[in-house]
């Protein structure tokens, strides 16, 4: 569990969430979000007061229906097209490129 309270956010707590989210925040953003996330969650705290004993959660409102289809090979996105928007790609090898991760 992250070490921070229900709705009061320290700068360290904000930095810990930012690390989970792969977001680099500057000092001003950390201060701003520490205050604003607290405000928004304080408002959301009224939801905590509702009695939900025995109430199932709703994750999706899709009525159940069959979505199976035959498992057939069909044309798909061309490899060059799939790579065309990459900031860095090896088109000949058909690969996306990232900074070196193995020493």
């Amino acid at each position, binding site marked *: 569990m992250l070490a921070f309270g229900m709705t009061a956010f320290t700068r360290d707590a904000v930095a810990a*969430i930012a690390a989970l989210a792969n977001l680099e925040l500057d000092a001003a953003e950390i201060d701003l979000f520490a205050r604003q996330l607290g405000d928004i969650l304080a408002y959301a705290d009224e*939801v905590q007061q*509702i009695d939900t004993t025995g109430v199932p959660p709703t994750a999706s409102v899709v*009525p159940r229906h069959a979505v199976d289809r035959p498992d057939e090979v069909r044309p798909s996105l061309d490899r060059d097209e799939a790579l065309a928007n990459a*900031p860095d790609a090896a088109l000949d090898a058909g690969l996306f490129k990232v900074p070196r*991760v193995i020493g």
Partner: protein
Amino acid sequence: MGRLMTIREVRNAVLSGARSATDVCRETLARIDALNPMLNAFNTVIADRALARAAAIDRDRDRWRDAPLAGVPVAIKDNICTHGVRTTASSRMLEDFIPPYDATAVIRLEAAGAIVVGKTNCDEFAMGSSNETSAFGPAHNPWALDRIPGGTSGGSAAAVSAQLAPFALGSDTGGSIRQPASLCGVVGLKPTYGRVSRYGLIAHASSLDQIGPIARTVGDVAVALRVLAGADHADATSAPDPVPDYAAALTGDVRGARIGIPRTLLEEGVDPGVSGAVMDALDVLKSRGATLVDIDLPHARYATPVYYLVSTAEASSNLARYDGVRYGFRASASPESRIPIPDLRQMYARTRAQGFGREVKRRIMLGTYVLSAGYYDAYYLKAQQVRTLILRDYDRAFERVDVVAMPTSPVAAFKIGERIADPLQMYLIDVFTVSANLTGLPAISVPCGFTADHLPVGVQLTGRRFDEATLLRVADAYERDTEWSKQLPPILSR
């Protein structure tokens, strides 16, 4: 193009030969050229491509005889993918993104003869209520250029209001079609979740997102919905339910229709100019034979906090894909240089820091927190349970009534800059629209008058699942009795 040309007027003029599709397209593009510098409604205009498609329709008019949208220009919200046409979601992250495929909704519109003229401005990744979070600056309201057009489909609503296109596509995660339609004085429909394929819609919150039309009349919305609706193998959440002829349902008859009004919900925080116009609209429906019924939606007042817990959780997960690897922006070691950042994690984090705007970051942070270990049960699970209670409230109401009526927005269009500094105040504007997303129910906003400042007001009607026909019938009957949709924003009389 004569003023007030609807989808049906354009199509009939093109198919009868009274106007060529090319003519209509040229005039639309000329109007965009003239007014878009003031409105900033479009991120991208595709004149050459639109004219080429119009010419193709003109060359082969017989082939399009049964096409419901033959030669009709359409504007597409810039978070809906268009093959070969830049699709940015109004974010620096996707500023140069060229989709390699079309959204299903776009394929269906083009197959029906529609001509895409451009991509409309919106809040970044459809997160906002005013269009002010767009990386390209806000669109402006045609009724008052210093005011917001609403969000997040602000460019689409502004474009339709200023007659830069007969209709437009928006997307609606928490009111993003209905609220800007209301604030710009046009009609906007969020269909039932699953009614329209989401394939090719840049995901914000997948259990809430839905594509829908914005147009000047209810009849036009009905025509567009019939084209857009239906099952799609590319979207497993799209519904197989048959698609009725919505336009045929517009009988003008509302006798016996029961309209529920959640009075307790409307007691606080609604601008008097807005509530007055909405109550007048309900009186009009009553005078045409509808019955007004007081209903109670006891959990609806929790819909806004529930929405911001559920939607940010889903958004934080959906937006994890923007990491500078497969598409979109990638940060360099310094803004001026093209020198790569040597560390992978640092590349991810800086790419997202520079590619996303502040509102998107705030929601990613909130969503990451409510999904994190130790807080998941207290926030995310709890919100999903209250979502169930809101659904049950509506199910119970629909045992007694056919539609539920309330304002679309508690306030009319406010000034650009007035609320952007306080995110919580901005979130509270969504109080009447988010329930339809949490429940998946269809809802429409229809113009119903003006405030004392002559800013448009919309009434929102919510219907039963997959019963857009009743929703449209009631909305159309109201529209027939009133002249609101015939009023033009001042920008058109310049």
